Each structure stands twice: as structure tokens, then as C-alpha cells.
């Protein structure tokens, strides 16, 4: 019996365009379970568009996206989430009027199933589920060290804490793949190091595969297993951090070319 398993995620020649603008052209890559995969590229390269295609928010016109061998193209975002694909957003997309607890508990939505009738009764199934939810959520709160903020409405929290709450909400989904869209954007060195530690903790303790989109090259080069470089919607390089750093196309995209007379 051969252990031939499909890769966790495959992008095959994915192309996305808005009218005449090609956001993504022929984007292909594969990643395996447990991998920490980074996608980098200058602003407007198509990194977030790739996430949106994967999530089902955008529908690419060309190519295919496969999850464990099955195409997930054209699936509704909530169905994609149910597969075990969680995400954080570049510009925080928390539920501003809900508390930290409620926000993270919302992440449990796909892992719970109490309907409106059982919910209205409360006693029995709904209560049991809420208690179990709370325990899971407290584990995440403990992991991310946000105990003190538990019952605050997230709109009142500082930016760095909001980023952590968003990570917590994604973790509450118990995902197999976690998409991190610029988790340390706008953070100072200390906050960045905290976040890097959380990412590594998640990887080691929970074994969740991650795709990291980030502009902080120091962070990416330090923690990523493999890196994909995008520019103007096209893949211009792929490999380990060392390979990518020495890739002439990448250097050209980031640093430009010397003028030759």
C-alpha cells in the first residue's frame, strides 16, 4: 500500500482579472500539510487577491485551486471555511461591537452545530456546547496571552492586541490551513517578535500549515520554510529563503536594475 497523498493545497495556473487588470497570471504552487509557506511581493503584486481566490471571496477566471486533491473553485466562502481554512486580514476585520470572547467564540461556528431551537431553550445541548466552546476559547486566550482583554469590546483595544484577537478567532476554527495576511504590519519590534513567537508556537503545538503574506523580510526569512515571490500577479521565484534571496528576478523586483549605459 503506497502512501500517495495529494498535497494539502494546489494552485494551478490561477488567473484572476478585473476588467483589463490582471491581478493574478498563471499562479501555481503546491504546499504540504504542516508547512509554513510565505508569499511575498511588492504592493499590488496579488498576494491578498490570491487569498481571496482561495477563500472564495473572488472567483478566478482561469486555472484551478485544489484542496487535498479536490477542486474548491467557486465554493462559497463559508463552505471553504468549513474545510478547515482559516484566515486573518490585512486590515483588521474583527466584529467591532463584540467582546474578545465573543469574537473568538464566533470562530467556533464551523465546529459547532446548535441550531436556533436548541439555542432558544439553552438548557441541554446549547449550554453544554457553550461551556465546551468557552474552554476551547480560554485555551486560545491563554496561548495568545490576552487574558486581560477578555471581556472588552474589540473596538476599544490597541492595534497589536486586535491583531492577536484576530489570530485567536482564526485558531478557534481549528483549521488545517491558516492564512495570515500581514500579521505584523504596523507593529513595533517587540510586538513583531511576540507575533513571530505565536506563529512558531502555533506551528509547533498545533501543527497547522500556514501561508504567510508579509512585508517584514526579516520575519519571513527567519520563519518561513519556503517562499513564493509575486510581482504584478506573476510568480517570479520560489524556494527556500536562501534561494529566494539570491534569485536575480527577486532582486530585480525589489531593488530594481542598475542603469546600463
Amino acid at each position, binding site marked *: 500500500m503506497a502512501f500517495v497523498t495529494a498535497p494539502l493545497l494546489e494552485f494551478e495556473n490561477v488567473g484572476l482579472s478585473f476588467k483589463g487588470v490582471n491581478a493574478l497570471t498563471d499562479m501555481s504552487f503546491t504546499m504540504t500539510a504542516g508547512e509554513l509557506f510565505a508569499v511575498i511581493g511588492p504592493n499590488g503584486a496579488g498576494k491578498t487577491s490570491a487569498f481571496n481566490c482561495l*477563500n472564495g*471571496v473572488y472567483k478566478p477566471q482561469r486555472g484551478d485551486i485544489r484542496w487535498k486533491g479536490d477542486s474548491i473553485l467557486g465554493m*462559497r*466562502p*463559508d463552505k*471553504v*471555511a*468549513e474545510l478547515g481554512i*482559516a*484566515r486573518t*486580514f490585512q486590515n483588521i*476585520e*474583527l*466584529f*467591532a*461591537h*463584540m467582546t474578545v470572547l*465573543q469574537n473568538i*467564540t*464566533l*470562530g*467556533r*461556528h*464551523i465546529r*459547532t*452545530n*446548535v*441550531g*436556533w431551537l*436548541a*439555542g*432558544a*431553550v*439553552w438548557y441541554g445541548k*446549547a*449550554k453544554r*456546547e*457553550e*461551556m465546551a466552546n*468557552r*474552554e476551547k476559547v480560554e485555551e486560545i486566550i491563554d496561548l495568545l496571552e490576552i487574558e486581560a482583554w477578555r471581556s472588552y469590546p474589540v473596538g476599544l483595544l490597541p492595534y497589536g492586541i486586535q491583531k492577536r484577537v484576530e489570530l485567536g*478567532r*482564526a485558531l478557534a*476554527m481549528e483549521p488545517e490551513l491558516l492564512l495570515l495576511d500581514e500579521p505584523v504590519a504596523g507593529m513595533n519590534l517587540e510586538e513583531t517578535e511576540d507575533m513571530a513567537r505565536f506563529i512558531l508556537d502555533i506551528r509547533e503545538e498545533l501543527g497547522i500549515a500556514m501561508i504567510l503574506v508579509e512585508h517584514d523580510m526579516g520575519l519571513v526569512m527567519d520563519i518561513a520554510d519556503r517562499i513564493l515571490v509575486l510581482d504584478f500577479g506573476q510568480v517570479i521565484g520560489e524556494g527556500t529563503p536562501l534561494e529566494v534571496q539570491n534569485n536575480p528576478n527577486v532582486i530585480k523586483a525589489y531593488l530594481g536594475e542598475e542603469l546600463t549605459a
Partner: protein
Amino acid sequence: MRGRPNLYTEYKAEMGLFPSMSKKIAIGLLALIAILGPLAALPFLGFAGDASWLILVNKALVFAIAALGINLLTGVAGQVSLGHAFFMAVGAYTAVVLGGEAGNTVWGLGLPIWIWLPAAGVAAALIGVFVAPTAVRVRGLYLAFVTLGLVFIGLYLWRNLGKIAGGPGTGRPWPELEFALWRNMDPLVSFTSDGPLWWWLTPVNWLPWVHIEEMDGEVKTFFFLVVLVAVFAIIAKNLMRTRIGRSWAAIRDRDIAAEVMGVADAKGKTQAFGISSFYAGMGGALFASVVGRIIPESWDIFLSVEFVAIILIGGAGTIVGTFLGTFFVVLSPRIVENVTGFLATQAEDGGPFSWLGSIFVRSSADDWIGIVSYPDAAGPGLSVAQLNIVLFGVLIVVFLIAEPLGLYGIWLRARNYWKGWPFTY
């Protein structure tokens, strides 16, 4: 845990309905007032037993049920709806067809309350789910207009379906609040007729200053409605604190993020419409029954707007706010009328407020100063009813700008001020 009221050692203690001692005391006091007040058994609050007030309070309780529904839809799920009057009408007409008496010109099956009341809610909920696919495609202002359309479709239907609604301008009588096992059987309990004190209320007579043998129909109606309202409030709270309520709040705050987190957007909105309409249907049926007779023109846009006023003045997305808003909106016209009448007599007979009365009230055609005519048509000013509409309009604007959480927000601020006193933060 004496002395540490905010220390919780179990999740279930913190996640209870009334997690703190002060909340338990408050709800206990409220229950006590709800039992003793209408029986005129409370010192200083004897007026609560006055039938003319109690009729208003009963109307407020009925409105509170419908308001809980719109608060789930608009306050929690963020779907602004002006169609509440339509769903209330669906409930009311389901009730009257099932429970009302048949006549030459109207249908009626004469079934008992345990059929027509739940059926009113279910019918409204079904219609709610039926129109939801159209409604979930639009949001914000557009949704308000789509749901407003329902009210006008409804008004046309009620005017023309004489067999159901009883004809324009006349309406038809609604079934009374009485519990019978089957049609034409003697009711086991009547919640509308005067009668002897219910046996389980006899302990009230142990209070030394109280001696009650008879209770009015309004008091019975009050008790019936209070129990219903309590049940519906707890159900609403339970929905809000479990999976479905969280998904509604998520859709309200960030719908795309909610979808990416696994919340099915259309499903959540459809459920919100269905459950909100259930509340509206029940509220509409009870409203019609408590009032007794309703003309088809009553289910108009002003009824819907009244509910928008309730959630905006009371506090969107909270149960306490729903009640504050409902009582404010239902009781304030009467209070305004009383105050105006008081000022008018002051102006006429002279008193400490006669100066205010003479400025504010226009008591005859040759009285040139004043905003409000009292009695009505005494001068060219506003009538008391018009003044009330103006007041609601002003209050909605003021609350939207200054205190989006409504009366509930004011209460929160007052509470936090005294919690922190003497410090300001």
C-alpha cells in the same frame, strides 16, 4: 465569594442570565413590582393598579414582544426593516381567522388560543422566510425600502380581503384572551373578564395594608402578558448568547469576514427574518386581541416607524433597551398629555407653573402664545398627538447623534459614573 462579586470560578456562573448579585436583586424587585403593582398592593405605587394606566402598560407589554423581534433583526443582525407592521398584521389576521367568530361577511374558525396564538407566530415566520430571499440580496437603506414595500402590499391586501380583515374603516372583533380546550367550550381561564382573586395570589392579602378579593380583567391580562413577555425575552437572550446570535452579530459587524469565518450569510439573515417575524406575528395577534377591534388601515408605516423609534430610543441590540424603549414610546404620549393638561390648568387657575403653562399651552383661540393647543382645537397650535410625533422625531435624531445605545447607553454611563465615583474614570 463575599466581597469579590466579580470573581467567577465556573464558566456557568459567569455565563448565567443574571450573573451578578445586583442583577439578581434587580430582577427580583422587578418581579415583585410586577405582581404587587397591578393589584394596587404597593404603597406609593397604587396608581399602577389604575385601569387606564394598566391598559397602556398592557399595550406596552404586547409591543415589547414585537419589539424584541425587531431588535433581534435590526439590533442584533443589523438588518434594518420597516416591514414589522406587515408581519404583525399577518400574525393578527392569522389569529382572527383561526380564533375569531365567523360572520356573514368574515371567516372565522373559533379555535382556542393555544392554536391561534402560536399559529399567528408561525404564519408570520413562514412569510418572513418566504420573503427573505429577496431581502437578503440588499442591505442598509435598500433593505429598508424593500421591507417598506411589504407594508404597502399588506395595506392593499387588508383593505381588499374583507373576509379576513373585515372591511376598510370597520375591521372586525378579535378573539379574547381566554383559555378554552376547544371551540364553543367554556373557557377554563379568562384573562379579560373581572372576577375573584386567583387562588395562587392569596398570599398578597397577608400584607397588612392589603385586602383584595376581586381583580379586574386588565390585571389578569397584565399577568398573562407579563409571563409571555418574560418567556420571549429569555428566548431572545438565549438566541443572542448562543451560536445563532453570534453569527447574526458577526453579519451585522462585518458580513464578508463573517462568511470567511464560516457563517452562511443568506442562511443567517433568513433565520433572523423568520424568528423576528415570529415575534412580530405573536405581538400583532396579541395587540389586536388586547385592543379588541382593529381596522385594516392600522398596519401602516407609522406602526413600523414606532418600532424603529423603540429600538433607537431604547438601545439597539439589547434586551433591557428593548423594554426601556417600548415603555418610553408607549407611555410617553399619555405622560405628555397629562403634563400638558396639568400645565393648562396651572395657566388657568394660577399655580407655581402657571408661567410655564401660559408660554407652552394655547388654551383658546385668542391666546397667542403657546405651542400646544389644549384642549385640542382650542387654538391654531399643535394637538397633543402631533406634539408626540414631533417629540419622537426629535428624540430619534438626538439619540442617533448623541447616544446610539439609547436609554440603555444613558443607564450604562450613569452606572459607570457611580461605580467609579469619586473618580471620573
